[in-house]
C-alpha cells in the first residue's frame, strides 16, 4: 500500500513525467530533438553540480565518515561484473565479449539515476547523507576495468580483433569526461566547503531539479528511440535488465547498512548498485572491446534498466531499505 503511494508520488513528479513525454515524442515521430551541444551542456551542468554538492558535503562530514562506505562502493562495482558475467554466459548464452561488455555496464553506474533518486528522497522529506555522491564518483571506473579485462581475456583466447590496449581503457575509465567532471567537481567542492557553496548555490543548487526535469525529457527521447531495438535483444536481456537491478539494489542497500550508512544513504547505495551506466561505460567499451555489440548493452542499460529504475526501481529500493532498517 505504502509502496504503491511511493511509486505514484514518483510517477507524478515533473522529472518522470517529462521523461515519459520524451518517450512519446520519440514514438510519435515528433521532430523534437535536443541539439547535441544542449545535451552536452545539460550533462556538464548536472555532473558538476552533483559533484560539487557532494564535495561540500564531504568537507562538512569529514573524510573519516566517508572512506569506509566509499571503499565498499568500489568493491561493489568490481564484484557486480564478476557475478553477472557467468549469468550472461551461462543463462543468457551470450558470447564472452558481449557478456563482459554488459557486465561492465551493470557494475558501473548512472549519474542521472542517482540524481533522480536524491531528488525523490528530497521530495518525500527522507533525509540522506549528502556525501553519497562520493560513492557515485568512485563507482564508475572499477566495473569498467573489470569488464574490459574479462573481455580482453576472452577475446585473446579467441584470437579476435584486438581493440585499444587496456591502457586506453584505463585512461578512458579514469579521465573520460563524465568521470573527470564528477571527480573533479567533487574535489573542488571538498576544497571550497561552505564558503564556496554560498557563492554558487543559486546556480548549482536552486534550479537543479528543474534542469533535471528538462534533461529527462531529452533522455526520454533517446531511450524512446531505442525501444524499437527491444525485439533485437530478446527476452533474456529484458528480464536481466529488471531482475539484476533488483538483486543489485538489495545488495547495495545491505552493504550500505553494513558500512554504517543511515537509511537514506543505504538507499542511494542500492540505487547506484542497481543502476547501469550508459555514458561512461559505452565510451570505454566501444574503444576497448569494439567486437562487443552495442545494441545489446545500450538497449539493456538505456531502454530497459534506466526507465525501470527511475519509475519503479527507486521507490522499491527505498522500500527495501525501510524493511532492512525497520
Amino acid at each position: 500500500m505504502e509502496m504503491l503511494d511511493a511509486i505514484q508520488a514518483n510517477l507524478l513528479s515533473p522529472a518522470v513525467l517529462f521523461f515519459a513525454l520524451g518517450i512519446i515524442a520519440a514514438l510519435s515521430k515528433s521532430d523534437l530533438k535536443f541539439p547535441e551541444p544542449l545535451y552536452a551542456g545539460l550533462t556538464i551542468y548536472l555532473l558538476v553540480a552533483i559533484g560539487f554538492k557532494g564535495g561540500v558535503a564531504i568537507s562538512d562530514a569529514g573524510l573519516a565518515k566517508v572512506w569506509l562506505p566509499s571503499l565498499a562502493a568500489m568493491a561493489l562495482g568490481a564484484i557486480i561484473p564478476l557475478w553477472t558475467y557467468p549469468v550472461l554466459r551461462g543463462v543468457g548464452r551470450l558470447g564472452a565479449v558481449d557478456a563482459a561488455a554488459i557486465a561492465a555496464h551493470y557494475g558501473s553506474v548512472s549519474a542521472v539515476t542517482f540524481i533522480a533518486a536524491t531528488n525523490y528522497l528530497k521530495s518525500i522529506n527522507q533525509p540522506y547523507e549528502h556525501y553519497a555522491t562520493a560513492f557515485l564518483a568512485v563507482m564508475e571506473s572499477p566495473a569498467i576495468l573489470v569488464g574490459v579485462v574479462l573481455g580482453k581475456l576472452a577475446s585473446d583466447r579467441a584470437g579476435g580483433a584486438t581493440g585499444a590496449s587496456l591502457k586506453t581503457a584505463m585512461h578512458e575509465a579514469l579521465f573520460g569526461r563524465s568521470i573527470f567532471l564528477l571527480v573533479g567537481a567533487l574535489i573542488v567542492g571538498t576544497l571550497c566547503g561552505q564558503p564556496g557553496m554560498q557563492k554558487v548555490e543559486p546556480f548549482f543548487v536552486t534550479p537543479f531539479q528543474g534542469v533535471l526535469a528538462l534533461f529527462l525529457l531529452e533522455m526520454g527521447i533517446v531511450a524512446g528511440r531505442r525501444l524499437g531495438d527491444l525485439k533485437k535483444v530478446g527476452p533474456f536481456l529484458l528480464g536481466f535488465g529488471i531482475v539484476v537491478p533488483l538483486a543489485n539494489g538489495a545488495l547495495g542497500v545491505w552493504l550500505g547498512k553494513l558500512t554504517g550508512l543511515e537509511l537514506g544513504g543505504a538507499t542511494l547505495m542500492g540505487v547506484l548498485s542497481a543502476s547501469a551506466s550508459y555514458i561512461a561505460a559505452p565510451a570505454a567499451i566501444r574503444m576497448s572491446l569494439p567486437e562487443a555489440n552495442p545494441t545489446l548493452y545500450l538497449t539493456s542499460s538505456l531502454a530497459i534498466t534506466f526507465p525501470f529504475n527511475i519509475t519503479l526501481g527507486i521507490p522499491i529500493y527505498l522500500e527495501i531499505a525501510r524493511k532492512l532498517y525497520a
Partner: protein
Amino acid sequence: MNTHPMKLVTIVCEAYAKDAVKKLLRETGAHGYTLFEVEGDGSRGERPADIREFANIQVEVILQPDAAQKLLERLHAELFPRYGMIAFESDVRVLRPGKF
C-alpha cells in the same frame, strides 16, 4: 596556374573511431586532415548524432596517391572489422603539391 593531381580520401565513421583513424593518418604520412560531425544512416542503423553514443564523423584527407592507397589498405584491414565506417577515394588537384 598549374594544379597537381592528388587523392582525397573521405572516411565516415562512428565518433569512437576518431583516435584510431587519426593514428592511422599519422602513420600513413598525412600532413593534415579536416573533420566534422555528421548524421547518417547505413547498415548499422541511423546515427541521429544528438548524443555521443550515436555520433558520426566525416574525415577528409588529401594525400599522395601511394599514401592514399596505403591508407585505404590499412583501413580495410584494421578498422573496417571493428567500427561502423565507410571510406572512398577521389581525384583532386591542388596548387602546392609539396604541402601534402
